């Protein structure tokens, strides 16, 4: 083979590699550097140390964002997994209409979070939404005004987020259930172990890898959640439903605080790395074994 054709694979990859080096890793480096400068409206390049981080972690609004992220992530991941697993087990009982049911449960995943947020904002409207439905049905004391209650609004984001993503978790678990070795289940049934115990004792423990991927994917989605918050509450009332992603956006594009924006983005990146890097590492290593 001549010299040129030996190098073709490298030449083909080179543009993508260069683009990723610049637009992913170069940009990350730039953002981390800016988080250690005094930049406000415009980037400034004189080194300023960790003061932006000190400012960030003394800002009450950032603590609200972190607390919301914690509440949202825990509830969103837990409910999606419980609901997804429950639905997958129900659907795994040779249901005739399985195709239709699966389609109906999974379609929200094809929607934009902006669409989901718009729809739920309307349904959760305190005056005309579900609250009014309950009043019309005679339950006049029913109050469902979480959308406008600062301490409850974060849970409306959980409701809409779970609605959107739980079908996807169901699909993951259903694929996992279908790949459990049927011989093991048959053997357990021959031994007279009741169906419920077969699930809790044999099948669910064997789904460990599915649990891990679901937790990783969902928490990754939660950390990045931005669109849903904007569409449903716009971070309000006040900044009661701010999350790190909306905080960063506000600092970058509305408040002219580039240093704060860069510092909060860097903290987000560190959080995602803490979740993703061990996972990617074990996945890539497992492939070599």
């Amino acid at each position, binding site marked *: 083979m001549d010299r040129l*054709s030996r190098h*073709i*694979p*490298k030449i*083909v*990859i080179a543009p*993508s*590699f260069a683009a*990723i080096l610049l637009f*992913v*890793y170069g*940009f*990350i480096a*730039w*953002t981390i550097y*800016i988080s250690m400068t005094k930049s406000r409206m415009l*980037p400034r390049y004189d080194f300023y140390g960790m003061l932006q981080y000190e400012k960030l972690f003394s800002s009450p609004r950032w603590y609200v964002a972190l607390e919301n992220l914690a509440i949202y992530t825990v509830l969103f991941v837990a409910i999606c997994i419980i609901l997804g697993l429950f639905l997958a087990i129900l659907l795994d009982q040779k249901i005739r209409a399985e195709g239709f049911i699966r*389609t*109906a*449960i*999974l*379609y929200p995943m*094809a*929607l*934009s979070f*902006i*669409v989901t947020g*718009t*729809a*739920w904002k*309307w349904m959760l409207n305190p005056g*005309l939404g*579900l609250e*009014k*439905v309950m009043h019309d049905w005679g339950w006049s004391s029913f109050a469902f005004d979480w959308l406008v209650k600062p301490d409850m609004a974060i849970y409306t984001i959980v409701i809409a987020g779970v*609605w959107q993503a739980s079908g996807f978790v169901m699909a*993951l678990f259903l*694929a996992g*259930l279908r790949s459990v070795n049927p011989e093991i*289940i048959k053997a357990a*049934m021959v031994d007279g172990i009741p*169906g419920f115990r077969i699930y809790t004792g044999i099948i669910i423990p064997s789904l460990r890898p599915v649990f891990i991927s679901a937790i*990783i994917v969902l928490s*990754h989605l939660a*950390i990045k959640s*931005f*669109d849903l918050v*904007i569409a449903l509450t*716009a971070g309000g009332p006040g900044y009661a439903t701010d999350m*790190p*992603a909306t905080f960063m*956006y506000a600092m970058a*594009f509305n408040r002219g605080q580039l240093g704060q924006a860069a510092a909060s*983005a*860097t903290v*987000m990146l560190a959080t*995602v790395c803490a979740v*993703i*890097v061990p996972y990617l590492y074990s*996945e890539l290593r497992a492939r070599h074994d």
Partner: protein
Amino acid sequence: MVETRGSFKNKLLRWLLLTILGLFVLYYLLPLFVMISTSLKSLAEIRTGSLISLPREITLDAWALAWSGSCTGTECFGMKPYFFNSVIMVIPAVLISTLIGAVNGYTLSKWKFAGSEVIFGLLLFGCFIPFQVILLPMAIVLGKLGLAGTIPGLIMVHVIYGIGFTTLFFRNYYVSVPTELVKAAKIDGAGFFQIFFSIFLPLSTPVFVVTIIWQFTQIWNDFLFGVSFSSAGSQPVTVALNNIVNTSTGVKAYNVDMAAAIIAALPTLVVYVLAGKYFVRGLTAGSVKG
């Protein structure tokens, strides 16, 4: 699936099972039903009627307004111009990122060289970063290139940050093609591109479908890049929807909001209904790597 015997108790359990599933189906379909039925009502009926009732009188006024008359800020062109912005953004962005992913995936699976695994790892990690960390420098670079607030700028951003996923899809697909095929073709004197076009491309229809659907859904539904890098006139449909819903002048027109939301959702919903199988495959491939 755990088998159960057909006693009376089991029949009862089966009915219970179907009822529970039915209730869940209603729960997932309810927002779609509410959106459609609200979009077909008049504002007067919305104020007096119930959220979950069918429209007494069907009117398409809200749809006409949402498509070409509702206001985003001061401009009142409806969703139409923004819908077409999204169309002319999504088509090149999907095609370019998919083609680059195909060639990359082929190279990284069948033409490995020293360091190619590291390059793949770096590409893969790029799929998972929170994009907040690249928003500021990207805004500056787009400005320097004269692409700030333009559709070509958005196309460029979507292509760059789509390459990681498209490469991943194609690489994982091509890994299962026997390497002996490549070796045999090389002995016959075929080169890098000849092998790609005559052996790999003809095998690739399923992975192209999965990747195109994945990229289409991601880019059509994107909001973060759209809201950060567009300006009045070049906004994609998701940004326009959010602006229409949040325009505070005048009476809140919930029926128009819902019609606009359906317009924004329609393309990806149609793709999902027509090609759900490939959509799910993309979702699971995008999350469970291996």
